[in-house]
């Protein structure tokens, strides 16, 4: 019933105000998968975040959460997604210039440091310590499936140095890192062809944690996980005329979602936080260290 009222208000405002344009990455066909996920439902109705489409799911969930947060924060205008090339998005140039208002994709805090003066950074969508990844190896490479933490210095992992957080995480372990700047698929191919042993990937949504890519299967090394030591945030342009207003709405809404436990629920149901690896050994656990009391 509650959601029906919300839908009613959104519809009313849709006719009254111009839509809110939100940038999304044009690649990876997010718009189509987003529609498939909604399957005719209103975005505000979504309370089951389990994946129903193939491919990475967190981006779809973030699009949903962003809208729900904006609405809860008082921003009731209809939303229009504006696909843009990933290069523009990574450099935040449009956001800095005020040409774009908000990005429907969370960003590592580390990547925003130089732009704190130009961008509003919301409360974290993913908090420090929540983001974990596995060392995915080919399923046929049975010898590595149960590799103990003490032997990690014998493991070679491919990583992109532009993914600063991944890079820092790996730098704080004994693992040998092979740097590669290029497509994600090529990195997986390097694992497939035994150029490297493993690749750092978010734990798969599937129950078995198996990642299936183009008919090939990859499994995480059992009982080992890596903390990606940073938090993820939405960003809003400071220079955009509606920036401050949207940022306030977004931050307020996120706080409400967090308070209601929706954020955590969404991250868990979407598979981003995997319950199956809860008790696995975090190889860079020391990076969780808190300051002195």
């Amino acid at each position, binding site marked *: 019933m509650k959601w029906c009222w919300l839908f009613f208000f959104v519809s009313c405002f849709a006719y009254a105000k111009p839509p809110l344009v939100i940038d999304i990455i044009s690649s990876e066909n997010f718009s189509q998968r987003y529609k498939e996920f909604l399957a005719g439902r209103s975005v505000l109705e979504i309370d089951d975040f389990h994946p129903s489409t193939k491919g990475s799911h967190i981006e779809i969930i973030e699009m949903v959460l962003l809208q729900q947060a904006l609405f809860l924060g008082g921003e009731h205008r209809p939303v229009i997604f504006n696909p843009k090339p990933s290069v523009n998005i990574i450099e935040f140039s449009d956001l800095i210039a005020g040409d774009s208002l908000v990005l429907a994709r969370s960003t590592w805090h580390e990547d925003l*440091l130089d732009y704190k*003066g130009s961008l509003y950074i919301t409360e974290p969508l993913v908090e420090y310590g929540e983001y974990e990844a596995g060392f995915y190896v080919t399923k046929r490479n049975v010898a590595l499936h149960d590799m103990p933490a003490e032997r990690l210095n014998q493991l070679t992992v491919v990583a992109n140095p532009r993914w600063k957080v991944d890079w820092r995480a790996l730098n704080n372990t004994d693992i040998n890192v092979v740097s590669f700047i290029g497509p994600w698929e090529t990195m997986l191919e390097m694992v497939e062809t035994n150029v490297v042993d493993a690749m750092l990937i978010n734990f798969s949504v599937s129950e078995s944690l198996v990642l299936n890519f183009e008919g090939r299967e990859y499994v995480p090394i059992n009982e080992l996980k890596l903390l990606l030591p940073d938090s993820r945030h939405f960003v809003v342009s400071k220079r955009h005329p509606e920036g401050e207003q949207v940022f306030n709405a977004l931050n307020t809404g996120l706080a409400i979602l967090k308070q209601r436990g929706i954020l955590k629920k969404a991250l868990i149901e979407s598979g981003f936080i995997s319950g199956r690896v809860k008790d696995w050994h975090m190889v860079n656990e020391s990076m969780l260290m808190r300051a002195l009391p």
Partner: protein
Amino acid sequence: MSWLRSVWYYCLILFSYEICGDEDTVVQKQTISTAFEQLKYRMESEHELSVLPQLRVIRNQAKHYAQRTIEIQTILIEASIRQHFGDYKHSLSMHYQALELAEQVGKPRIMVETLLAIIDLELDLERYDHAQRYVNQATQIAQALNQDDEFLVHVKLWRAKIYLEKGSFRQALYELELGQKLAKNNSPLSARLLLIEAQVALRLGNYLVSRTLLNEFSIKYMSSADDKSQLDYQLALAESALQAGEFSEAIELAMKGLEQTFHTRYLEEQASLQRLLASAYAQLSDYQQAHLYLKRYSLTERALDQQKRNNKVLQLEAQYALAHQQQQVSLLEKDNAIQAQQIVQHEQTLENTKLTQQRWLLIGLLCFAAVLFVYWRWQNRRYTSKLEMQVAERTAELKERNKRLQTLSFTDSLTGLSNRHYFFSTIDSQINALPEKHDMIFCIVDIDHFKKINDTYGHAAGDLVLQSFADILKQCTRNSDLLVRWGGEEFLLVMPDMSRRDAQEAVERIRQQVERFPFMANGQTVQCTCSIGFAPYPLTPDLQEQVSWEQVLELADSGLYLAKEVHRNTWIGLDSVRQPSAFDVEYTLKHYKEQVRQGNIVVSSSYVGAEIPA
């Protein structure tokens, strides 16, 4: 002024080195120490290449006078200068040389100092795992020196720097907070901690915290800070302004910082400032300036990349050299192992050969011993059998001799008949062998008037008569009869298993043969007769126990005596006893003739027709 003073010390050292002897060692050491302190004072302000010659002189002097601490410190200073000017290869080797010396000296302070210098270099080379290892080592030593917290603070500072470089900001903060607790207020160390803490805060996006820390640094330490710290401060301040969105201030601060980097080798900081300027201009929409600084940043970054690439190449070369060396060592080890294996095999072969030889020698010895034993046994047996043979021969010989002796002792040498000894030795056995109810006749034969023959013809003729007589007796007797020369011209004839009637015939035959035989004495025929007395044994079956053969022999002798007495050339033989129960043999022997006459004993005789005279 400090320059002049240093040159003066330098000259002084050279001069004193030339002229001084061992007795001035203490003075020398003092001079070196003072000169080094002067040099250090200058070094604190800048990385000055011009001090290197003086530094090397001091090092040689320190080495000469075994001032190890100064020697290590001079090495570290030169290594630091080389590091600053990008000569990482020599810097690395000098650092390791210093570490080796420090380990030899065994002083914890100089050890920690050396390790921290190596950590600095390892961070430049981006070898974080090496740096981490050395910082752990330094921590252990510093903890043992806990009375002096300064070293622990140093270690904390470098640990924080490593975490900052590695991107583990929380750990860096933790170490810095620990360091601040240990550090003395207003000390240069505290200032360095503050500066690093400000940098960490910026990496975490806490520009407000960073500004507070930088402000504190500026007030307390800016005047005494070295070039590098001042530059770091400037950069951090500019970054704080950028994060705060104060782009113009950020640009101003960055420009100021950038000026400080000119004509220096602080390329990292220069690049950071240029990138910051580009970012600030871009966010101010001054894209022309942003582009300019982006280009400058790109150039600086390329130079840095080149430097890093060189370092990486250097590392790869070192790794390759190490791998190659390890491979060679491994090959050598394999060779050694193979050689060792061959030696072992050779030794084994030798051992086996020796064992085989020993075995064969033992077998040979055993065979030789066996042959010797067999030979000894053979010789022994041969000797034994020879001895046995000899013994047998001797025994046989002895037996033969005994037999001969016995024969001699039992034989009468003149007649060849048995003698009395033989008779006594054999009679008992013959009597025992006598079948029951068979008689044995004891017969004594005596040549009549033999004394006359001897007297007439001589003893030789008498002997011939005796021999002929014996021959006659032999001819007239059986093989089973025992014929004995009883003594002189008297012969005993024992005839076993002969009836009394057969005995009469036998003695008659003897008497007749003798009577008829022509005895020869000195070429003349001589007539001889003989008298014979005999008696049977047992005399009667009832008297066998009472009358012994000796008594029977005496009875025969009594018969002979009677025959001689009555006629000669006759024989008398006892046939039977009239009353055996009343027979007294002793009496009979004494009164034989009387007994015959009384008829108590019955005799037979060849003498017929005449009575036995009284």
